[in-house]
């Protein structure tokens, strides 16, 4: 019974819903690519005079505690946030695939040791590694990315190993083995392709989660540092103003939520596309 973390796609997913999700994801990616170029440099320059101005015609989402336009900062920060999230997920997915492949194809003792390593990875609180890196290399976005990548791979490794072992024993693979196909060729020709498309689905879904984790890390001060406009750092530096300047907290929070929802649902849609029988179930 492999663990398929299915997400909530709508049963007879009206095309409208699918396009909405694609729109959100496209908007996010566009912001990440183009955003920082469009954003004026004033986004990084503190203009103390008009700090914490409420949303107005000039500043649609108001200004933050250093007088910088919140909307443009969200747009400028999108690259830092989304790119790092994608980097994290890609990194730990690759590590996960490598470990899972070795565990499946390799001899029994290799499988056993790798699985013990995965247990350690799962038990290791991501927070500690992030804090350790922050204290070692000084808190920065890079150290947060590396820390999260190191604590992210076990889940993927375990999930993929389960699926790979299952496909290895699936009828058609046993058949191929019967014809004398080597385990390694089997892996590359049959098992890996099947697992890879599961990986792509999980990759999309995980980006949403990675954005959340990155924001959490910045919140406790081990993620991006000033004057970076990374969304988590924005909330962290604005959390004192929930009462009197709600927009400084609301804007990045909404951006994070939108990214998490967008990519999360993209994962679901890809999942349903991959395995139509899941339509409406996930």
């Amino acid at each position, binding site marked *: 019974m492999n663990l398929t973390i299915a997400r909530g796609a709508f049963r007879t997913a009206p095309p409208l819903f699918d396009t909405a999700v694609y729109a959100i994801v496209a908007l996010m990616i566009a912001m990440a690519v183009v955003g920082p170029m469009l954003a004026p440099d004033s986004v*990084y*320059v*503190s203009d*103390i*005079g008009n*700090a*914490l101005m409420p949303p107005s015609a000039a500043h649609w989402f108001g200004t933050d*505690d*250093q*007088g910088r336009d919140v909307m443009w900062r969200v747009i400028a920060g999108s690259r830092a946030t989304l790119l790092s999230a994608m980097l994290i997920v890609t990194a730990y997915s690759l590590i996960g695939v490598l470990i899972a492949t070795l565990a499946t194809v390799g001899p029994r003792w290799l499988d056993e040791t790798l699985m013990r390593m995965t247990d350690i990875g799962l038990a290791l609180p991501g927070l500690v590694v992030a804090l350790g890196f*922050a*204290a070692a290399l*000084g*808190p*920065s976005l890079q150290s947060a990315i590396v820390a999260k990548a190191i604590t992210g791979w076990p889940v993927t490794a375990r999930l993929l190993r389960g699926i790979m072992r299952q496909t290895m024993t699936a009828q058609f693979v046993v058949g191929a083995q019967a014809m004398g196909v080597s385990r390694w060729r089997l892996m590359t020709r049959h098992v890996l392709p099947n697992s890879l498309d599961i990986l792509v689905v999980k990759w999309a879904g995980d980006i949403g989660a990675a954005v959340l984790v990155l924001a959490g890390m910045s*919140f*406790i*001060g081990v993620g991006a*540092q*000033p*004057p970076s406009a990374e969304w988590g750092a924005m909330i*962290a*530096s604005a*959390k*004192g*103003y*929930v*009462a*009197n300047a709600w927009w400084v907290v609301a804007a990045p929070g909404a951006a994070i939520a939108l990214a998490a929802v967008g990519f999360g649902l993209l994962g679901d849609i890809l999942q349903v596309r991959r395995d139509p029988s899941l339509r409406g179930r996930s």
Partner: protein
Amino acid sequence: MRIRRQAVEGRWGQHWGQWGRQVAVLGAAAIALSGQATAQTKFDRSKTVIFANGGVVATLDPMRTDYAQTSFIASTLYDTLVTYDKGGKLVGQLAETFELASDAKSINVLLRPGVVFHDGSPVTAQDVAYTLDRLKRLGLGIASQIDGYDKTTVHDARKLTIRLARPDSLFLGALSKVYILEAKLVAANVGTDDAQGWLQTHDAGSGPYTFAGRRNADIVVSQFPGYWNKADGRPEQIVFRRIDEGATQRDELRAGNVDLAVLGMGYRDAALLDKEGRVKDARLKPELQTNIIFNTRTGPTADPRVRRAIRLAYDYQGGLSAIRQGNGVIASGPLPATMSCRPDLPAAHRDLAEARRLLAEAGVKNLQITMRFQPTVEVQRLEATLLQSNLAEIGVQLKLEPISFAAYLASVARFDSIPQMMLLDDFAQFPDPGSILLRGYRSDAVGTNRSGYANPKVDALLDAAKASSNPTQRCDLYKQVQTILDKDSVIMPLYTVGRPVTYRPQQIQTPEVSKVVFPLAPADLRLAKKS
């Protein structure tokens, strides 16, 4: 979001910067109930003061008053021989009379009669000797302030002489930081760690309050009836409650669950609360100055002209009014404006043209410098970013590099690893100019001379001051030192800043600054007069 346990470090008390965005929370490891009966006394809320503060109390051992949380509570449980009054003058507390010998190598003390510890036994010269010897043995925490101590000769129950290894005019002032323990009680519980474990959760003091144990996660001290220095309006209980988030402190103050909040509240929150009216900001004026320390030995900042140029770039007025909400004055010289013996030096000002000229004269183009700061301190984050954009205007690219407390300590332990620039909130342990100058700028003071500054002329002046028992002569020497430091731009003082302390006027009178316990001594709090 983490309240880091801030050490009340004197010379470069940067941790004292207000806590703001990132406040490191120390887990409540500190005070174990360990069988001690909780004070189940029913509360009379009207006679109780609830003191909210960030960070957790690691220990009650008065030796560790180098940590703010310990310093707040220990100052209510213990007394010192001498202390500083509101005007910054040294007065006796347990000591009735005290006098520094002419060679500044010994101090004669006569104890005040009729003073008792919390268990009723009298305070004797033997207790003072035991306390000082224990500090020397352990060499931890506040011991660094009295590293010149040799031994104590006890003449009788009330007369004693403290002898120093070498002349040190600063020692008398440093005694204001040494809380006296009850020798008999501590010796009985010495255990293997010189009673550090026992003192963590017990009090052996003679102070105005006794330790009444923990109530849930908070620490309670209740009034000591037998205290020698009677004063009316003292609250019956003070409850020390840990709240790390400034926003949470603000909400609890508004809701009346807390009577005053000291660390954790940002300048902006305090100013807004004050405007609202129900909760006021006491705007205390401690000996606190925001400085940027240059590395005067290596790298581009070794050139005084570069240092001077950088000093001329910062938007002092903008920073003070917008970031510190105007709570302070622009700096004029290395020492905070509230201290004595200060020469009149020009206030820091901005002059971009002069700055660019100096850079050109120093032959420096598109200079890149790294400045370290404490991410856990919100105002420092804002000031660092402001300086970054100011320096960009004169073609200097400032790279901001956050650093953790432990890493910073390690980097200043050796001259070669001192950062190019470091943004700090400097705090004087006690109001004697020597407490900053002697330890901070003597060329051989490794570990405390954070700029690596070496100037034989300054060394000579400082040695003379340290050995002189004549206050006016010392003052003149200190003034000469400050003039040289300012001309040489060893550090870049920004402003002498106040400390926001928000309180409920309905419950307590306006808190006043303390010269010894930063920024205020809970024992000085008085209940509001019920009309």
